[in-house]
């Protein structure tokens, strides 16, 4: 049986944003990339979705307050 970590109840949805999408997010938030929260390149989920250093990952959390909350993390070494 193949294990897909993304299916685990504790893991929210991770998606890699394309360059244009990432750029758009950064302009909306009015910040630089390095100001985003980070995620390690070796992070099991980052590995699973094949994220590379510098990618911006969109995370859709199941929030207890907002039900759905979107956050971004940038992949670092």
């Amino acid at each position: 049986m193949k294990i897909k970590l993304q299916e685990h109840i504790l893991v929210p949805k991770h998606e890699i944003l394309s360059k244009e999408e990432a750029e758009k997010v950064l302009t909306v938030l009015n910040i630089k990339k390095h100001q985003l929260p980070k995620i390690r390149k070796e992070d099991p989920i980052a590995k699973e979705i094949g994220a590379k250093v510098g990618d911006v990952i969109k995370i859709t959390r199941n929030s207890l307050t907002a039900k759905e909350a979107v956050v971004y993390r940038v992949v670092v070494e």
Partner: protein
Amino acid sequence: MDIKEIEKELKKYPFPESVRRDIREELAKLDLNKKSLKKIIDRCYEEYLSNLMEPGEAAGIIAAQSIGEPGTQMTMRTFHYAGVAEINVTLGLPRLIEIMDVRKTPSTPIMTIRLQDDYSNDRKLAREVANRIEATYITDLADISVDITGMKIILFLDEKVMERKQVDKDELVKKLSKSLKVDVEEKDGKLYLSPKEPSYRKLLQTVEKMKDIVIKGIKEIRRVIIRKEEGEYVLYTEGSNLKKVMRVKGVDYRRTTTNNILEIAEVLGIEAARNAIIKEALDTLEEQGLNVDVRHIMLVADMMTNDGEVKQVGRHGVAGEKVSVLSRAAFEVTVNHLLEAAIRGDTDNLSGVTENVIVGQAIKLGTGDVELISKLGGRSK
């Protein structure tokens, strides 16, 4: 009124999903025309905005106070029995401190293992999975005696336990001879082990070594308890090894968790660790009958996982990584911080709260956070 119409109107506003759902539910009950619908939603949005956190509000201090005050009412007692099953769990203040300090291993690591559909309703199958997980040692299965004159170790196997733990005799023999490098002979329910070189010291060493061999199961899992919960069998373990347990046949890895946050960070990533911190902290507080708003805990969890790895709240983590020298010095180990900063010739930009209190300036909070920039020389285009 038509749900679709309401939804369409609601989408125009950046409400969080939960707020949108509440408004939608309420509006669906009412019979409205388009104009009043717009008015109501507009009013809701106003109300929503007024409930948002103000820019410059000291969210961290509020969170600290909101978790700290109920913390004073928590029990200092470390151990508690959770439910009927006799598993020891650290609860109360010691557990909360453990979560915030991100200990390498919690003092009572526990896993909650849920089973796949066909296993979760059958006690026998659940037992089977439990046997695959629980670490079984030779001392559980047999009595050991040493025959010095014959230079042999005799194992009196307990057939009943062997059957209950589902240990195959042939497999046991294989395992023993392979990992101990001894000749194993079987004769009417007894195993005779003889080391290859006949030495008394070697014989005793072999016995000690044998006691450490995990015959079956996962080394870290000391005990497994089966409990029926909400119509399915759930396994609780003493000891934790998420990575290995997730791969055990019959285990539903999607719904299997541990209370060891660092382990979750390692196996499931930083976001899962954040969720685990929130869940563990909230459960600990709730178990003590304390109601702390999740938002405070979420803020703490966010700070702890911001860097991509879990760091503790204290001196070696969140508080210790502050940029300001004065702020760090005000927290713990004052002299060290000041000394090191002096040696390195650090500067403090006085951008935080603590450092400004120390030097006696207005703090950068609320209205103090605003800086005015004026453009000189005519109007810009």
